C-alpha cells in the first residue's frame, strides 16, 4: 500500500470518528449549542481546551520555530502557556459564575451598555476571524500535502467536516470532537519524538532527553556521554550559526512573552470553553487540566526542535563538521520526498558533489522550511508509514479543532449578542437556536472564502489577534471583575483606546490594513525599538489608563451592577443560575 492510500485511510477513520461524535452529541437547546449544557467534566473540558488552543501553528510550526532560533524562541513556549495562569486566576472562574454564554455578553451586562457590548463583539470578531484564516489555510495545506489533493479541494473538505459537527452539535459536538482530536494529535506528536529521543539519548521521554547525554554510535562525530545541548551548541558554532542557548535581547523577549500571555488569556474562544463546566470550582480545576494536556505537547516540542536540528546537522556532516560534507547521492530518502514539495532544496553550488550546510553564503541546503521538522519527523527517525499517516491526521485535527472553537465564538457573538441582545430580544429559544446554526454556517462560509483568498497579510494577522486580545478584551474583562468602580464609559473608552492604539502601531509599520507598501514608518523607527508584534502589553496599558481616568471623572456604576460584581466574585450559586 502506498503512503497516500495509508494517509487517506487513517485520516478518513479520524473523520468517521468525528462524525460519529457529532451525531451522538447533537445540540437540542441554546444551552447545549453555546455551552454544552454546562455538563462537561473538568478533565474532559481541559482536554477539549487543549485541542481548542493548540492550533496548526502549535502542532506543525512551533518545534521548527524553536529549532531554528533556539533559546530566544522559548518565548512561544512560555507565552502560550503562561496565559493560562492569568486566565485561571483573573478571568475563568468569575466568568463561569456570571453564568452566561459569551464574552461580549459579560461586557454588555457588566457595563450595562449595548455600546460596550457591540465594541466587545467587534473586538471578538476581528480577533477570531484573523485567527481562523490561519487555521483554514493550515488545514488546506495539510490536506494537500498528505492526501495529494489541491489546496482548494483540501480547504473544501476541511470546511465540510467542520460544518457537519459544528452546525449539528454546537459547543456540545465541538467539545467531544475536540477530545477525540486531542487524542489523535498528542499520539501523533509523541510517538516520533519518543523514538528520536531514544535514538539520540537513550531516554524515552523527549523532555528529559533534551537535557541528557548523547548515546553511543551516532554519526556526525558526535561524542557519546556529552550533553545533547552542549553537542548542539558546538556543532552550530562550528558551522557559523548562533549558539542554540544564547540570549539576544532579554527585554524585548520579555515584552513579547507578556504580549502572548495577556493575549492568550483574552482569547474569547478559549474563555468560553470554561462556561461548559458545572461549577466555579470545576472551572479552576479545568484550567489546570487544560495546561496539563497542553504541557504534554509543549514540553516535547523544544526536544523535537533541538533533536531535529541536531539530526539535520549530523545528516549533512556524517563525518563531523571538520570532515567531508555528505555526498549528494547519499542523502537519505526523506530528502527526496520533501524536495518534491519545494519545502526542502539543495544546490551543489561549488560542484564538488557534496552538500555543505553552513551559516554562510556558500550554504548549499538552500531551502529548509521549518514546518518540515514535525512533518518529516517520522521519516527522519525511520518510522513506519502508519506513523506518517498519524502525523497527517494529527495536523488536520489540530487545525480543525481550533477552527471549530473559533467559529463557535464568532457565531455565538452574532446570534446571541447581536441578534438576541440587540436586534430582536423577543426571539424564541427555537428561533435563537436556528439563528445560531445559520450564523455558524455563515461563519464557516466566510472562513472558507478567506482561506481561499487569504488577504496579503496572512503572516501578520496572528500578531494582530494576540495584540488585540491583550489590548481590548483582557483589560475590559479583568476590570469588570476586580474593579467595582469601573463604569460603562471607562470600559468602552478603554477598549477603544486599546483597539485604536494597537491598530495604529501595527498599521504604521506593517501597512494600513497590512497592505504592503502603505506603511508610513520603517523598522528602524520603532518606538523604543519595540516591534509591532510586541505591542499588546502597551495597548493594554493604554486601555487601563484611559479606563481609569474616564471612569474617575464619570458617575459610579448603579447599585445593581455593583451587586452583580459582588456576586461574580463568590462561587455559590453558579450551578443554580444556569440556563435561566
Amino acid at each position: 500500500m502506498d503512503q497516500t492510500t495509508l494517509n487517506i485511510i487513517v485520516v478518513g477513520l479520524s473523520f468517521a470518528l468525528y462524525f460519529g461524535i457529532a451525531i451522538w452529541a447533537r445540540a437540542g437547546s441554546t444551552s447545549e449549542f453555546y455551552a454544552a449544557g454546562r455538563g462537561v467534566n473538568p478533565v474532559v473540558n481541559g482536554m477539549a481546551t487543549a485541542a481548542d488552543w493548540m492550533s496548526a501553528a502549535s502542532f506543525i510550526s512551533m518545534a521548527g520555530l524553536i529549532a531554528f532560533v533556539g533559546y530566544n524562541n522559548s518565548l512561544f513556549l512560555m507565552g502560550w502557556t503562561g496565559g493560562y495562569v492569568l486566565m485561571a486566576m483573573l478571568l475563568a472562574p468569575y466568568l463561569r459564575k456570571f453564568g452566561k454564554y459569551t464574552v461580549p455578553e459579560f461586557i454588555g451586562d457588566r457595563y450595562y451598555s449595548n455600546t460596550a457590548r457591540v465594541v466587545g463583539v467587534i473586538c471578538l470578531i476581528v480577533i477570531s476571524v484573523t485567527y481562523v484564516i490561519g487555521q483554514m489555510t493550515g488545514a488546506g495545506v495539510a490536506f494537500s500535502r498528505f492526501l495529494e489533493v489541491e489546496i482548494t479541494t483540501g480547504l473544501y473538505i476541511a470546511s465540510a467536516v467542520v460544518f457537519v459537527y459544528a452546525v449539528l452539535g454546537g459547543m456540545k459536538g465541538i467539545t467531544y470532537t475536540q477530545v477525540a482530536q486531542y487524542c489523535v494529535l498528542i499520539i501523533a506528536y509523541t510517538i516520533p519524538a519518543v523514538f528520536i529521543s531514544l535514538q539520540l539519548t537513550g531516554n524515552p521521554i523527549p523532555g528529559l532527553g533534551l537535557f541528557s547525554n548523547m548515546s553511543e554510535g551516532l554519526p556526525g562525530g558526535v561524542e557519546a556521554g556529552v550533553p545533547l545541548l552542549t553537542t548542539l551548541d558546538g556543532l552550530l558554532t562550528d558551522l557559523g550559526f548562533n549558539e542554540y542557548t544564547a540570549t539576544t535581547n532579554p527585554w524585548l523577549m520579555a515584552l513579547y512573552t507578556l504580549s502572548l500571555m495577556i493575549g492568550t488569556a483574552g482569547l474569547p474562544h478559549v474563555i468560553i470553553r470554561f462556561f461548559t463546566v458545572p461549577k466555579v470550582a470545576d472551572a479552576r480545576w479545568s484550567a489546570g487540566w487544560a495546561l496539563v494536556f497542553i504541557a504534554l505537547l509543549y514540553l516535547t516540542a523544544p526536544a523535537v526542535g533541538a533533536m531535529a536540528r541536531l539530526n539535520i546537522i549530523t545528516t549533512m556532516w556524517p563525518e563531523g563538521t571538520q570532515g567531508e560534507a555528505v555526498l549528494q547521492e547519499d542523502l537519505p530518502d526523506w530528502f527526496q520526498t520533501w524536495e518534491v514539495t519545494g519545502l526542502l532544496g539543495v544546490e551543489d553550488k561549488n560542484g564538488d558533489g557534496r552538500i555543505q550546510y553552513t551559516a554562510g553564503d556558500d550554504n548549499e541546503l538552500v531551502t529548509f522550511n521549518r514546518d518540515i521538522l514535525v512533518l518529516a519527523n517520522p521519516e527522519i527517525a525511520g518510522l513506519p508509514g502508519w506513523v506518517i499517516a498519524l502525523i497527517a491526521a494529527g495536523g488536520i485535527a489540530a487545525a480543525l479543532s481550533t477552527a471549530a472553537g473559533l467559529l463557535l465564538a464568532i457565531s455565538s457573538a452574532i446570534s446571541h449578542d447581536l441578534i438576541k441582545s440587540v436586534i430582536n430580544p423577543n426571539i424564541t429559544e427555537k428561533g435563537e437556536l436556528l439563528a445560531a446554526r445559520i450564523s455558524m454556517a455563515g461563519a464557516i462560509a466566510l472562513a472558507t472564502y478567506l482561506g481561499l483568498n487569504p488577504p496579503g497579510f496572512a503572516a501578520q494577522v496572528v500578531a494582530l489577534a494576540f495584540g488585540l486580545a491583550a489590548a481590548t478584551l483582557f483589560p475590559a474583562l479583568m476590570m469588570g471583575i476586580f474593579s467595582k468602580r469601573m463604569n460603562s464609559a471607562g470600559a468602552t473608552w478603554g477598549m477603544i483606546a486599546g483597539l485604536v492604539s494597537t491598530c495604529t502601531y501595527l498599521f504604521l509599520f506593517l501597512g494600513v490594513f497590512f497592505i504592503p507598501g502603505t506603511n508610513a514608518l520603517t523598522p528602524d523607527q520603532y518606538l523604543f525599538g519595540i516591534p509591532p508584534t510586541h505591542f499588546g502589553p502597551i495597548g493594554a496599558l493604554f486601555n487601563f489608563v484611559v479606563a481609569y481616568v474616564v471612569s474617575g471623572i464619570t458617575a459610579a456604576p448603579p447599585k445593581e451592577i455593583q451587586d452583580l460584581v459582588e456576586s461574580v466574585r463568590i462561587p455559590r450559586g453558579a450551578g443554580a443560575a444556569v440556563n435561566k
Partner: protein
Amino acid sequence: MADNSGNNAYWSANLRLVTICLVIWALCSYGFAILLRPLISGIEVGGTDLGFWFAQQGSILVFLFLIFFYAWRMNKLDKEHGVDE
C-alpha cells in the same frame, strides 16, 4: 448569600493568594528564564544553564503547579467562608 463583611474577608484572601501566585509566575518566567538568567547562569543543568531550563520547561511546570495550587487553596477558602456550592 453570606453577609457582606464575610465576603470582604474572602475577597481579600483571594487577592492575597492571586498576588502571591502571580509574583512566583513572573519571577520564574520573566525573572529566571529571561531577565535574571545571567544571575543564575552558574547553575548547570543537562549541558546548559538553569535559565535555559526555566525558559524551555521549568516555567511551564511552575505554571502547572500554580494553577493547581490556586484551585486547591481557593476551593478550601470557599468552604471556610461558606461561599462554596
